[in-house]
């Protein structure tokens, strides 16, 4: 309001001023007439005496203005007026900018939320992932999480370190919740003491677990996530102190965590105290993620050194029972390699996001060069105006400012429009982005995204504005006023900057197309990999966990599992059913353990660790994994707990030379374990994703003899994944029938994580297909923009050289010759662009190496195809205007003079 009032008052002031001045002149004229001067002469004299009315009015008005700003505002007004007069130009530029800036903002938002923003915990820079390197532990220490901690290791670390304020270990598992309506399978995070303290987020109701809650003989408690609290208890505050049944144990609800709180990178429903029992702890299992909060001022290197000295102490303190050597773990060469928790959460997604960011940035640059081209043409048509201004005394800076005001205003308008594009683009990105994109829930268009938009808008405005400025701000009064362009053809110099822009465009388009094609070839290579299973779209997987309350001993568990398999097989349309401890690409390894081949000597006395899986009869048949030699398990084998295993083909080759040679050979875990006979060999399965090589796998029967019990007794799996082959996989009706089938065996067993193998397979390709999609979009945009750029430059050249063409034709030039002349000039530009682009691409593709599979970053096919395609496009884009040039009628062209 104040502002409007100010404007209103100002216009009244200006009016007052004019009235005063008019009266002043009139009165002086009257006076002169009184002295006897004729009216006309008197008025003229009065005016002359007064001076330049307009100038004096302007100077007087300046008392009320902020002169620099006002004159920029005037420039802006002029810009808007000119844009309104050429709506086609304005729409083209604004649309280009809105899409370009919008795409950049969207990708930046993802990049910012995932990579740049700190984790949503207080002082999160002190949160540390307790990552252990263990090069001697083979597959047990993978690149996703290093060697995980065992509870005994955690206790040693927690009690003797000097570097951490607090530390804890945690793991996810399923939990059956009963006592509220339907049986419910909930995601539970099992946390030791120190986890919540390290994360430092207070509960929204109730309190954290106390020390007593972590006592195995203490009270049984549970905490809820905000979502579970809302869903199951309607957000009722009185829920604190209530009890629920978790896996048959009555637990008191002691607290609720706030909205948005996640267990590092996992969503959860329940938090359960780990309640470690010192008396029963062994050195294994290595299955827990460790986090810690560093003391202020302690560096990661110091923490590494501090805990490195505790590894031997751990070996001194704990044991795997009588007759075992606790120092055998020295072979694993365990060493702390702690890193910030953020680094652990973000993982290696960074390379994908940076590539995508660079890609859209490059597209933006190409778009900017197109806009710069358009602005150049506009500036050229204004050359006369600029020359007049220069002649009237406009300095270099004044002209530059006017041109820049126009381009920055365009940039900012594009920026405003781009926010809508960014919003839509962000939703699209999240939808097509890899499902395992970390911190997905935190992605949003926030203040820093908008700040980025603003910066980018101004930057783009300056960037594409600078080119006309460099070219035209220096315009000399003479050049434009002489009307040089009426009499001579365009000089080389006039086209130099536009040509440079085309070369830059072609080079950038080439880089993008090369990267897009490399990704397409990567994807094709991945699709061609035999994953070790078939017909993934018709394979349904479902996790079933049988709690002790439902089946107390392994026999009952096995019986229930077999019954469930039979019921599932009886569903109409089901062709076969099997189950296993884990299915390919589900992101979890059932077990890693030692495996010795009979008659083989091992370095250091102990055999290497191998990946284990536990499978039912018919599992391989269902999955479509070929049995290469020998035979599959039968239910009789399982029921009699016969000492037998199956192995993967690569294990067989490595150990005995061929698949056939493996049959009948014997292997065992430890020197004290019984020998197991190899009865079958199956083809290799890429369990860790198509881009990772198939590991050697030992397949145990789903019912096996317990490794530590003497005499051997039956052990079984409580958690298995069923694989069901059916044409109806993935449909809702099928899911309901599966549920009925399972509940007909036991009504208290819930189904969890229902997936198809196709989903798991696609997820393992998700990063590649996401990068591919982004690069393909960017590549085709770059190609399109590049073609428009070449077409624009050639057709502008043609229009500028019409007179010259006319003369040439009049003097007898061949039309085909003329056509070729223009196409040739386009090809020369393209050639230079391609050469620069190839060198750049060769240098840049090395950075993409980690995203490629099966092809070299300098793939010859790609590096030959793309330049050819670009050259063909350039030829086509220049042919149309060239044909127009050749069609020029020399008489008309010359008459236009």
């Amino acid at each position, binding site marked *: 309001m104040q502002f409007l009032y100010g404007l209103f008052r100002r216009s009244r002031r200006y009016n007052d001023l004019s009235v005063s001045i008019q*009266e*002043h002149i*009139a009165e002086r004229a*009257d006076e002169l007439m009184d002295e006897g001067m004729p009216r006309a002469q008197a008025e003229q004299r009065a005016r002359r005496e007064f001076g330049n009315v307009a100038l004096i009015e302007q100077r007087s008005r300046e*008392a009320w203005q902020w002169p620099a700003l006002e004159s920029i505002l005037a420039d802006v007004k002029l810009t808007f007026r000119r844009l309104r007069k050429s709506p086609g130009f304005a729409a083209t530029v604004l649309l280009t900018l809105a899409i370009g800036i919008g795409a950049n903002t969207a990708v930046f938002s993802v990049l910012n939320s995932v990579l740049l923003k700190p984790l949503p915990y207080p002082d999160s820079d002190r949160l540390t992932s307790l990552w252990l390197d263990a090069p001697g532990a083979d597959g047990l220490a993978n690149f996703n999480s290093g060697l995980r901690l065992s509870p005994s290791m955690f206790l040693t670390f927690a009690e003797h370190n000097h570097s951490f304020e607090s530390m804890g270990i945690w793991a996810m598992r399923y939990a059956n919740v009963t006592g509220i309506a339907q049986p419910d399978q909930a995601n539970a995070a099992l946390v030791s003491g120190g986890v919540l303290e390290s994360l430092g987020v207070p509960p929204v109701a109730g309190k954290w677990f106390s020390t007593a809650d972590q006592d195995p003989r203490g009270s049984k408690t549970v905490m809820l996530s905000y979502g579970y609290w809302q869903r199951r208890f309607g957000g009722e505050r009185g829920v604190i102190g209530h009890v629920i049944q978790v896996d048959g144990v009555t637990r008191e609800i002691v607290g609720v965590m706030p909205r948005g709180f996640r267990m590092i990178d996992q969503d959860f429903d329940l938090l359960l105290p780990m309640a470690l029992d010192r008396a029963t702890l062994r050195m294994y299992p290595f299955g827990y993620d460790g986090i810690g909060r560093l003391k202020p001022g302690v560096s990661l290197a110091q923490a590494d050194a501090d805990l490195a000295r505790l590894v031997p102490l751990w070996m001194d303190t704990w044991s795997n029972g009588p007759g075992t050597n606790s120092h055998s773990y020295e072979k694993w060469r365990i060493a702390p390699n702690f890193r910030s928790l953020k680094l652990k959460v973000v993982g290696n997604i960074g390379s994908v996001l940076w590539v995508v960011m660079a890609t859209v940035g490059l597209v933006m640059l190409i778009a900017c060069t197109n806009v710069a081209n358009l602005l150049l043409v506009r500036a050229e048509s204004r050359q006369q105006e600029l020359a007049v201004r220069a002649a009237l005394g406009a300095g270099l800076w004044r002209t530059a400012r006017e041109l820049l005001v126009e381009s920055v205003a365009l940039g900012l308008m594009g920026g405003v429009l781009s926010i809508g594009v960014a919003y839509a683009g962000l939703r699209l990105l999240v939808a097509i982005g890899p499902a395992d994109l970390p911190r997905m829930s935190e992605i949003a268009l926030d203040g820093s995204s908008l700040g980025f938009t603003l910066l980018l808008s101004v930057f783009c405005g300056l960037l594409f504005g600078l080119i006309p400025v460099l070219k035209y701000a220096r315009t000399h009064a003479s050049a434009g006023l002489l009307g040089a362009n009426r009499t001579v053809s365009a000089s080389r110099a006039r086209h130099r900057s536009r040509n440079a822009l085309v070369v830059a465009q072609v080079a950038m388009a080439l880089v993008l197309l090369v990267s897009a094609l490399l990704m397409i070839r990567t994807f094709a290579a991945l699709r061609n990999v035999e994953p070790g299973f078939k017909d993934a779209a018709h394979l349904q997987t479902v996790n079933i966990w049988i709690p002790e309350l439902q089946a107390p001993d392994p026999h009952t568990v096995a019986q229930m599992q077999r019954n469930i398999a039979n019921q599932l097989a009886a569903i109409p349309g089901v062709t076969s059913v099997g189950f296993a401890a884990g299915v390919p690409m589900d992101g979890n390894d059932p077990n890693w353990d030692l495996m010795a081949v009979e008659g083989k000597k091992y370095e250091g006395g102990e055999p290497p660790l191998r990946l284990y899986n536990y499978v039912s009869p018919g599992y391989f048949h269902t999955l479509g994994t070929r049995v290469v030699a020998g035979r599959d398990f039968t239910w009789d084998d399982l029921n009699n707990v016969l000492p037998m295993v199956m192995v993967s083909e690569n294990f067989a080759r490595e150990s005995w030379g061929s698949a056939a040679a493996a049959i009948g050979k014997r292997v065992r875990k430890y020197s004290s374990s019984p020998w197991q006979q190899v009865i079958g060999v199956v083809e290799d399965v890429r369990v860790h994703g198509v881009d990772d090589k198939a590991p050697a796998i030992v397949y145990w029967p789903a019912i096996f003899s317990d490794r530590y019990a003497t005499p051997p007794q039956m052990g079984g799996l409580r958690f298995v994944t069923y694989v069901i082959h059916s044409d109806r996989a993935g449909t809702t009706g099928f899911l309901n029938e599966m549920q009925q089938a399972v509940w007909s065996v036991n009504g208290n067993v819930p189904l969890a994580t229902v997936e198809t193998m196709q989903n798991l397979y696609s997820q393992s390709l998700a990063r590649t297909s996401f990068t591919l999609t982004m690069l393909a979009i960017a590549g085709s945009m770059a190609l399109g923009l590049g073609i428009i750029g070449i077409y624009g430059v050639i057709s502008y050249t043609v229009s500028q050289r019409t007179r010259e063409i006319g003369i040439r034709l009049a003097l007898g030039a061949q039309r085909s010759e003329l056509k070729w002349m223009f196409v040739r000039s386009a090809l020369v530009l393209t050639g230079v662009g391609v050469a620069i682009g190839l060198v750049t691409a060769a240098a840049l593709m090395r950075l993409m190496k980690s995203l490629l599979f099966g092809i070299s970053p300098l793939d010859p096919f790609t590096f030959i195809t793309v330049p050819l395609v670009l050259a063909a496009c350039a030829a086509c884009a220049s042919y149309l205007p060239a044909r127009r040039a050749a069609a020029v009628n020399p008489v008309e062209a010359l008459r236009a003079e």
Partner: protein
Amino acid sequence: MAKNPEHRDLFPGALEIMILQSLRLKPMHGYALVKHIKEVSDNLLQVEEGSLYPALQRMLREGWLESEVGVSSKGRPTRIYRLKEAGLRHLEKEVVSFEKMFTGITRVLAVAGV
């Protein structure tokens, strides 16, 4: 671009003082101001229109003057400028400082003249 409009007839502030002093006698319009100063100074001082109007606007902005709708002696619509309280205070302050300066200059000139 317009050059700096701070062109002064005598020395900085003199024009303002003359305008303020003139308006102290009675409110006047622009032309009357020019004539008044010319007459009172016996044609020794001539106010340039090019300086008068920007100065008037500056003084309006400072709040030393106010303008009101009025008619000239010939009956034409114009704006009459009137001294405000703040303007009067400014005038008195400036007069004192000018007098000091004049005294100083006079003394220096007197010494040089011996």
